[in-house]
């Protein structure tokens, strides 16, 4: 998703507005209902719903209606990126430790070369 330029345009468009950035900031601390989002914003509920619609279109935020309450949260795609990043970090360590083994073998002093001293 992050690699689609059109989607990126929508994201930055969504974040260009200070009120929407404030909504994203609030959601980065955890899910919230629409009225919780609206409360510190000095905005009508319908204005908040419009902003929310834009944020959802951009892919930054998802919302779900349970009973009479619509709960919003940050799209967890960013988390997936982090998980991938961490697994690359593990792979990177594995590669480095393999190369450490090669390095130690290449630089072994004579008496270690047979594997025994």
């Amino acid at each position: 998703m992050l690699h689609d330029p059109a989607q990126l345009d929508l994201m930055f468009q969504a974040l260009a507005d200070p009120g929407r950035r404030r909504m994203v900031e609030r959601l980065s601390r955890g899910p919230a209902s629409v009225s919780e989002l609206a409360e510190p914003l000095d905005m009508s509920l319908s204005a908040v719903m419009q902003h929310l619609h834009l944020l959802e279109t951009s892919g930054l935020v998802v919302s779900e209606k349970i009973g009479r309450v619509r709960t919003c949260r940050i799209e967890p795609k960013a988390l997936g990126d982090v998980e991938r990043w961490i697994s690359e970090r593990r792979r990177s360590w594995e590669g480095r430790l393999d190369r450490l083994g090669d390095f130690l073998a290449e630089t072994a002093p004579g008496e270690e070369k047979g594997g025994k001293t």
Partner: protein
Amino acid sequence: MTERSVEQSAIAIVPPLNHDTIVLERTYEAKPARVFEAFASPEARMRWGVPSAHVELEYDQADFRIGGMDVSRCGPRGNLVYRVETRYRDIVPQRRIISTEIVSEGGITLCFALITVELLEAGSGTRIILTDQVGAFGGRSMIDGHRAGHAGALDNLAAELRR
């Protein structure tokens, strides 16, 4: 709430922090003194401290002692986009090295880590246990609009590593 305070707090979009612990064990046919030296010497680390021949590592600063700091840059060959600051917290020769690490790209912090390397005698060789406790951020593109084109930089690195 005034528009001004909204504007101010809006600057602080906080990316989520995710924690993980990576533990790796290896046994080398080399005495602990040699394995320790391979971690201690920046010249040695230049030779083995990259995961593959496609990745490059350069030291701007190296100071292997308790409280000392290494500053290095790494990334795909010819494109050293990552800056790594390593601060040595505990060094027991031939036994243990504990360091903290901050990896950043273009001034944006990507992760914080606590890295422990334990060295244990194993017959005529050495067993090492590496524990990397890492807290990593996501959503960098959200806080870094003008660098949007680099959103795939980590993927490029991954692709480099897989080659």
